[in-house]
């Protein structure tokens, strides 16, 4: 033992707590402490923010898709259109072409002369299968044939989105002069007795100046960054701004309106004209909605209408907006819950597409998965936990199961493709194969959960059973397994939730086909909800983005319900030994 020598003792120095240096040091240490704690909190908050943003994003995109606008019109059902061979029955109604009926009903809304182009655009406002509700109504009640039925027409996805706010802001200003239109359709000119158009021109030029200014400031900002692409863009911006500025610098010169500017229109004599050329005395343009007459319009009875979003920045043309706004004014537009989304199969038209096929496919697939992996998983767990001889072989099985749980899911897809489809020749795209593949995927999860549940049952229960003369198996199946069942069920639900959200392996075995029909059996071609989401998210139509998000909402709801059930089960049957 080392003795404490004099020099040791002399060096004894106690921790200094009183000097200012010591105080500063301790303050610094506590600052570090606070900072460290803050990092942890910040990390958690960031994860929470991400979850909230993600779910908020999905909800805000998807919720509108659960509602649908439709156009309620009086449609005259011409018996000739829905009969075949002079007979009207269910088959003839189902196979009838409703296009002429719909077209007639739509055109009756706009008395007066519509251009051919406008007529075409009018029909495109509704879905290709717009009369689906009418058809169903007629099938249910054939006596309506020959009468005029008030029925909802399904709007096209674009029109639907317009009513949901994806159109443009509309401003309307009363004019002061007396206006005289030169015609009721085609290209016309409107003259005003006051200097209304001069004001409008000044206003327009101001807007152009504003635009030039914002282009210049964007160019200035971009110049702060280096790079070839940046230089090119800056130059393009400056040129564009210069061109606009030239137009502003000539205040009296008339303006041609293009589709990069907000659209200006004149509402007069019950019609609507889109201005193409504006001078300080007159406006020339094309009639979108026919005028009743060429009567002079008194001050205050005609308006200058502005569609704020430039035509090139929106999906709907000025003509569409004019039609749709007129429908709304006349009260023909109704909003209702979008049952089609839940009851229809897939479709190329967003407004007709639904998730029923995917839901049925998911249910079939999950049934196969459950039937496969629950019994096998539980029995494997019982074997490993109770009957397996402790040794190398069991160790290997155990390591193997743990590893299998971490194998990428797409690899299971490769297994399904190579073994089930190519080797065993099972049908492609079928819920049977999908279910088996997913079953193998979640099997390790269920085995691990079941083993944990079996292990949690205290050995005394088993010993008690053995003590009264039960065999090992009787002790397990009569006593231990029932007590472990809640834990096993919890694990199974979590495993099934996992299977429900899985996509990649199903792509491999072809459950990605475009399938309109609802599958009826385990070997029919089908798709599942996550794959449907993937398919829709890839489509270019804006309306499908919203449908995708809506399908995600449905998927997440199922997942929340399943996980909620698992939590409930755990809480309800939680037992402390």
């Amino acid at each position: 033992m080392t003795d404490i020598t004099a020099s040791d003792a002399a060096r004894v120095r106690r921790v200094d707590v009183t000097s200012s240096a010591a105080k500063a040091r301790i303050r610094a240490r506590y600052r570090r402490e606070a900072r460290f704690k803050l990092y942890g909190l910040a990390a958690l908050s960031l994860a929470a923010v991400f979850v909230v943003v993600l779910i908020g994003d999905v909800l805000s995109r998807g919720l509108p898709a659960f509602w649908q606008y439709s156009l309620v019109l009086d449609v005259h059902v011409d018996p000739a259109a829905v009969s075949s061979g002079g007979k009207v029955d269910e088959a003839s109604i189902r196979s009838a072409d409703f296009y002429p009926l719909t077209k007639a009903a739509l055109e009756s809304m706009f008395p007066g002369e519509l251009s051919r182009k406008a007529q075409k655009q009018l029909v495109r406002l509704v879905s290709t299968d717009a009369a689906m509700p009418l058809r169903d109504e007629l099938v249910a009640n054939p006596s309506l044939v020959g009468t005029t039925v008030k029925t909802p027409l399904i709007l096209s996805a674009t029109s639907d989105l317009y009513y949901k706010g994806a159109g443009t802001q509309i401003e309307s200003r009363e004019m002061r002069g007396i206006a005289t239109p030169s015609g009721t359709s085609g290209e016309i000119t409107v003259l005003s007795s006051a200097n209304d158009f001069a004001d409008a021109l000044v206003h327009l030029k101001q807007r152009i100046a504003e635009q030039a200014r914002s282009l210049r400031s964007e160019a200035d900002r971009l110049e702060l960054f280096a790079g070839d692409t940046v230089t090119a863009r800056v130059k393009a911006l400056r040129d564009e701004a210069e061109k606009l500025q030239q137009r502003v610098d000539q205040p009296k010169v008339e303006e041609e309106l293009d589709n990069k500017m907000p659209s200006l229109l004149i509402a007069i004599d019950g019609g609507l004209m889109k201005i193409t050329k504006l001078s300080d005395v007159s406006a020339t343009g094309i009639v979108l909605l026919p005028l009743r007459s060429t009567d002079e319009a008194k001050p205050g009875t005609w308006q200058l209408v502005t569609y704020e979003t430039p035509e090139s920045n929106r999906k709907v043309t000025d003509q569409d907006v004019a039609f749709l706004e007129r429908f709304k004014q006349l009260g023909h537009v109704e909003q209702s819950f979008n049952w089609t989304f839940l009851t229809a199969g897939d479709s190329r038209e967003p407004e007709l597409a639904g998730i029923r096929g995917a839901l049925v496919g998911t249910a079939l697939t999950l049934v196969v998965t459950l039937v496969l992996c629950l019994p096998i998983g539980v029995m494997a767990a019982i074997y490993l936990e109770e009957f397996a001889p402790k040794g190398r072989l069991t160790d290997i099985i155990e390591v193997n199961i743990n590893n299998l749980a971490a194998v990428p899911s797409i690899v299971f897809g490769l297994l399904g493709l190579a073994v089930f489809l190519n080797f065993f020749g099972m049908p492609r795209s079928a819920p049977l194969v999908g279910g088996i593949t997913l079953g193998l995927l979640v099997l390790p999860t269920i085995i691990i959960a079941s083993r944990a549940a079996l292990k949690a049952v205290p050995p005394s229960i088993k010993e008690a059973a053995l003590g009264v003369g039960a065999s090992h198996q009787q002790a397990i199946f009569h006593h231990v397994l029932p007590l472990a069942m809640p834990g096993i069920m919890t694990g199974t639900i979590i495993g099934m939730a996992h299977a429900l959200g899985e996509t990649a392996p199903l792509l491999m075995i072809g459950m990605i086909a475009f399938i309109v029909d609802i599958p009826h059996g385990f070997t029919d071609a089908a798709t599942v909800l996550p794959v449907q989401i993937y398919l829709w998210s890839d489509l270019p139509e804006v309306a499908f983005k919203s449908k995708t998000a809506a399908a995600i909402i449905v998927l997440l709801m199922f997942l929340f319900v399943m996980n909620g059930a698992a939590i409930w089960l755990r809480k309800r049957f939680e037992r402390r030994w």
Partner: protein
Amino acid sequence: MHTLVDKHADAVVHANLAAGLSTPKVSAKDVNVYYGEKRALMDVSVDIPDRGVMSFIGPSGCGKSTFLRCINRMNDTIPICRVTGKITIDNQDIYDPKLDVVQLRARVGMVFQKPNPFPKSIYENVAYGPRIHGLSHSKADLDEIVQSSLEKAGLWKEVKDRLNESGTGMSGGQQQRLCIARAIAVNPEVILMDEPCSALDPIATARIEELIDELRKNFCIIIVTHSMQQAARVSQRTAFFHLGTLVEEGPTTEIFTNPKDKRTQDYITGRFG
């Protein structure tokens, strides 16, 4: 210088032994500890002298460890634990809200029941305290502190060639001496030892006991022990705890030869415990 310091230390010890307790280093007054609703310690009052070994004995669950952990406020780490009463070190209340617990623990070192070296090198284990408390100003300085601490703990000769090896690779006795070296590296005023030998074999125990005997010249040591023989061997004063109360406290020889309380008598003669 040599003789002077030694003499001084001895003088203090002798004075304490002679005069009983003139200036206690640690003093507790009416200390109660509650774990939630349960009262684990009842009105404990005791004075502990500097430069000497005080041992706490008593049966399991009697509150001796709980009381020990009050002295460096380790009980703060248990959320449901609540301490009332007053404990002072050098007349300073350690439960004063203004007092910083981190600095308190630099003054009151602790050695635990199971050796718990950090999973780092031997050097880093010992250097840890001086480093976080800013005790050294240079690498050479730190080397010196590490060496002298290991020397004081009687471990230097065994480990000087493998200072960079992991502290967890040593034998149990060495690990415990490393923990002691770690504790004395910051030169605390008080060292608390919570059954430091209970996980060790007899030979390792003997070495630790020798070490404690050596250290008492410079530190105030409080040791909780299960073994009455150990208390008799290493301590100058002994306190007997039973069911959360301090039954009796006094010079070790007196407690073991002539206990005043019947419960103490029963315990040391082995009638329970």
